[in-house]
Structures are given as C-alpha cells and as structure tokens.
C-alpha cells in the first residue's frame, strides 16, 4: 500500500514544522496542540483508516453489542440477527442523545431514553412514538422518511477475529489495509479459536502518539523496564525483528526470539523457566514460564496496526490493546486479554499469572505510561523543540535489531503524509 492510498483533500498547513523529512526530528507541539488533535480526529480516525474496536468473540451472539470509540467518537459495534457485524455512531438520529448507555449487552433493538426512537442492531430507524399522532394531534410529517434517519453507520469488518471500523468510504479493504507484511503476524497469533478473558484499562495523562512511539521502540525495552535486567531475563543476542509495513509505515511488528542454541535440551521445550544468575531472583519463576505454542519460540511480539490496535504476545500472555485518544494530553488503553479455546487448565492459569507482566501493574510495562507522562510534562513549553530519533539512522534498512528507532521514524513520515503536515 502506498502513500496515495491515504490521500485526502489538501488542507492549509498548520504552523508546525518537522525540521527533517526523514521522521528523525519531531516537534513537541504535536503532542499538545489542540489544532493537531482536532485534525487527527478528522484525518486519521474519521479518515482512511481501520480502527480496532473489539474481538469477534466479545460479540459472538446475535444481538450482542459493545460500546467503544473510534478516536474520541463513541460508537457501538453489534452482531446483527443474521450474524454479520454492524457499527454506528452512538448518537440518536433524533436529537443527538447518546443512544446506547450500556458498555455491553445483548439487544435486537436500541431505544433512545429521551423519546424512545427505536433502532435495530444495524442502526436503521424502526420506530417513532406517536409518529402518526394521536386523535387530533399531528404526528411526524406524512413524508417523513424513516430510511433517511437511521444512525450514522460505519464500515465494519473483521480479520483474524479482530473487528475494525472505519468512517471512510475510500479506505482499502481491511486485509489490504493491514497489508502483506503485517497479515502473517496477525495470522500467527490468531491462528485458532480464541476465548475472551476480560479487559483492564489504564488512563494516562499524555498524548496518544507517545504511546504509539513506545510500541515502535525496541530500544527502550531493556533500559526502561529494569525488571528485565534486575532478574536477568533479557538475553543478549536474542533474534530480533523490527519491521514496518511496506507502504505508509504506520504499522509495525517487533519480535524477540530466543535462539535455539540456548535451549540445547529437547526437554527444555515443553515448559521453560529462565534461570537466574547472582543477585536478585524471583521465588516463583513460573510467572516467566513459556509454553511453546508457535513455530518460532518468539517471547515478545508487539504489533501495531495504526491507529487503534497493538497486538501483543509476551510469553503466553495474549492481548489486543486498544489505544484511544481522549484529549491532546490524555489517552486510554484497553487491554483485551484472550486465550485459545483449546487451552489446558494449566496453560489458562499461566496466562492469568502472566497478566502480571503487562498492563498498568505489569512488571515489564508499568513504566510505559509513566514515561509518556514524563515526555508530556517535560516538553509542554518546548513546542518548537524537537525530539532526536537517530538510533540506527545510518542503517535505515536494518531490521534484525532491537537497537533502532527506525520504526518510529517511519511512523512519523507516514503520520505527516496522512495529516498533510
């Protein structure tokens, strides 16, 4: 997919300058500007993108629905009676009230609280109280067209059990949007039926793009998350990948894989506990267990599908993280945990135990939200200054490395094109 696929109408430039064209210098005002935030809502979230909204298994039954967001627009995604998916803006077509007030549930119709206008799960208007009036009292005009007053509908599709929604009529079909480079990595995780295990939420006082930078930044992993080094679990010389998609560069995958030479014993493959050296050690090392489930023994799979999804496998912890902007300086993360339908009880227990690694209290993730807040605080009055993203710049095509900021640079060049900056 090329830049032209994300082409939109020209906009007058904002007074924001990226000092270099290679994405290696990012002016800090993009993290705090209300004008940037407004443009993002139009050009990204309501633009030619597919936005992760739910797992298929969260709304598996006809009538199931879930309230969520595309950008900061409230939307509802539903399973219709015929099993297909639908999504609509959560705003009554009558007077604008938020229509669905429940976070999730099952209903074949949705009535607005205010005047009980009624809609089906596809968002079609099906009923208006007193439409024909009552006795001598007039109702709606005789020519009122029910079909023209449905809810605002979004395109919706799923790939590999991940549901995405789009406001765009022109965005490529979902598999093409995800792209040739990224699809195999989604297939790797979503290769068999999954079970939803619940979600946790984290609210951070920082700009959403700082989190996107974070999940494209393998350089920070062993430096910020000292759990790795304190307990000697990050092996030097792990096989690494840092791959962008071949088009706009807004999606990416980072992997770290143990090298088979480290695991000389065949018996080591079933359930493998990392050994500790001197110094600190964990009393219960099972939190770092690893049951082989995939062809390649990758312990870290961090894949971002722009703009709302980070698909994660860390050891046996499987999560679809939904990234939601709330304000220029606020974002929310929703961690959708899952396992496979054929998990043994022991493997399911391990997934629950390994939730300790990720999320707001995660041993190797709790610092991420804090780090983005530190950038937000430190850069607030330095809007014209820029960050420095030169790591690996001299070998921009090197992909078998974790010591690189290449994916972040690709993100910013793609972002500039999409935002017309």
């Amino acid at each position, binding site marked *: 997919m090329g830049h032209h696929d994300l082409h939109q109408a020209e906009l007058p430039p904002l007074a924001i300058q990226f000092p270099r064209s290679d994405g290696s210098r990012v002016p800090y005002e993009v993290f705090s500007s209300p004008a940037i935030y407004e443009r993002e809502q139009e050009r990204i979230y309501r633009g030619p993108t597919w936005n992760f909204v739910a797992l298929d298994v969260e709304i598996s039954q006809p009538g199931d629905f879930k309230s969520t967001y595309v950008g900061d627009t409230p939307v509802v995604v539903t399973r219709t009676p015929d099993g297909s998916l639908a999504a609509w803006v959560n705003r009554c077509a009558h007077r604008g009230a938020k229509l669905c007030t429940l*976070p999730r549930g099952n209903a074949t119709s949705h009535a607005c609280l205010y005047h009980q206008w009624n809609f089906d799960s596809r968002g079609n208007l099906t009923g208006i109280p007193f439409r024909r009036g009552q006795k001598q009292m007039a109702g709606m005009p005789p020519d009122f067209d029910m079909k023209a007053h449905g809810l605002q509908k979004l395109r919706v599709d799923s790939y590999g059990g991940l549901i995405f929604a789009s406001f765009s009529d022109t965005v490529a079909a979902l598999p093409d949007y995800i792209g040739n480079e990224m699809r195999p990595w989604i297939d790797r995780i979503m290769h068999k039926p999954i079970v939803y*295990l*619940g979600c*946790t*939420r984290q*609210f951070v006082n920082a700009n959403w793009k700082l989190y996107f930078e974070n999940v494209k930044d393998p350089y920070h992993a062993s430096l910020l998350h000292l759990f790795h080094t304190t307990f000697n679990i990050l092996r030097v010389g792990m096989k690494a990948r840092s791959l962008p998609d071949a088009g706009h560069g807004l999606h990416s995958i980072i992997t770290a894989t143990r090298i088979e030479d480290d695991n000389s014993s065949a018996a080591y493959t079933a359930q493998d506990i990392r050994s500790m050296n001197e110094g600190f050690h964990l*009393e219960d090392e099972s939190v770092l267990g690893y049951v082989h489930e995939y062809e390649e023994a990758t312990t870290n799979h961090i894949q971002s599908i722009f703009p709302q999804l980070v698909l994660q496998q860390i050891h046996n912890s499987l999560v679809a993280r939904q990234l939601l902007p709330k304000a220029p300086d606020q974002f929310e993360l929703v961690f959708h945990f899952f396992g496979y339908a054929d998990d043994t009880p022991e493997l399911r227990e391990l997934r629950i135990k390994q939730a300790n690694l990720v999320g707001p209290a*995660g041993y190797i993730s709790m610092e991420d939200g*804090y780090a983005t807040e530190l950038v937000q605080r430190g850069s607030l009055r330095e809007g014209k200054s820029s960050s420095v993203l030169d790591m690996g710049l001299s070998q921009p095509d090197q992909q078998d490395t974790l010591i690189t900021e290449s994916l972040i640079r690709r993100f910013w060049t793609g972002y500039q094109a999409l935002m017309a900056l």
Partner: protein
Amino acid sequence: MTPLDQMLLWFELYSLQERYISVLDNDQLEAWPELFTADGHYEIVPKENADAGLPMGIIYCNNQGMMRDRILSTREANLYEPQTYRHLVSGLIITPADQGMVKMSANYVVIRTNQEGDSIIYQAGRYEDQVINTAEGWRYRSKRAIYDTLRVPTLMAIPV
C-alpha cells in the same frame, strides 16, 4: 457463637484489616505478604470482569512467594513516581464459614498522593476475603480487591 464471641471475632478481624492497610500506607511493604498464608491468593480485578465471571485482573498472586516477588520488584526493579497511599476502609461484614474459615467483605478507597503533594481518589472498590486462624494469628487465605475505578490512573506499583 454468643453475641460477645461474635463481637470479639469482628474486632479481631477488624484489627487484621487495620494492620493490612497500615503496612501498605506506611511503607512497610515487606510485611504485606506476611499477612497471608503460604498458599494465600491475592488478586486485583476490575468490577466489570468480576461481574462477568472473567478472570483477568492487574495483579495475581497464588502464593506468598509471588507476593514477595511483587514487593521485591516494586522496591528494586520498577520505576514510578514516589507516592503514598491512604486507605479508607468501611463496612466490614464477617461471615463465619466451614472449618474455621471466615469470609469478610469491606469497602475501600485509596487516596494516592504524589511527591508534589497532589492527592487523587486513586481507586474505590471492595475487598472479598477469606481468613483463617493460624499459630501466628488471623491470616488471609484469599483476598480479592474488586475495583470500581475501572480506568487505572497511569500505573499501579503498590498493592491495594
């Protein structure tokens, strides 16, 4: 059990709860795991998952060693802004069950203060506990903190 016995039991378990929040609120984190049995469970789960019967939460320990690991990591590995908790706990209800085990539930609110002195209502929720009487006194065999404040602000470094 006579009414006086019931009152004494309630008071003993209230004291356990007071001890529990005291170690967390006054930087005696190493004493926290000792309030559990060796095979004790501790977990923090959002109310939305608990209500839906879904297992996932943000901290899960199924033995005392995991709790010591959590404190060791909090002390030595994880990075976070220096902070203080103040627990407000109310509504303690105790229900004696089989084999000396007592079920207890209570409301909690944690106010978190950062190093600049800003205090926020960090988390509201309820405890669902099982306690047993050991040679060392009453200890938690299981403690679930089920939180209403679904969006965890920034991070959680210290148990609630």
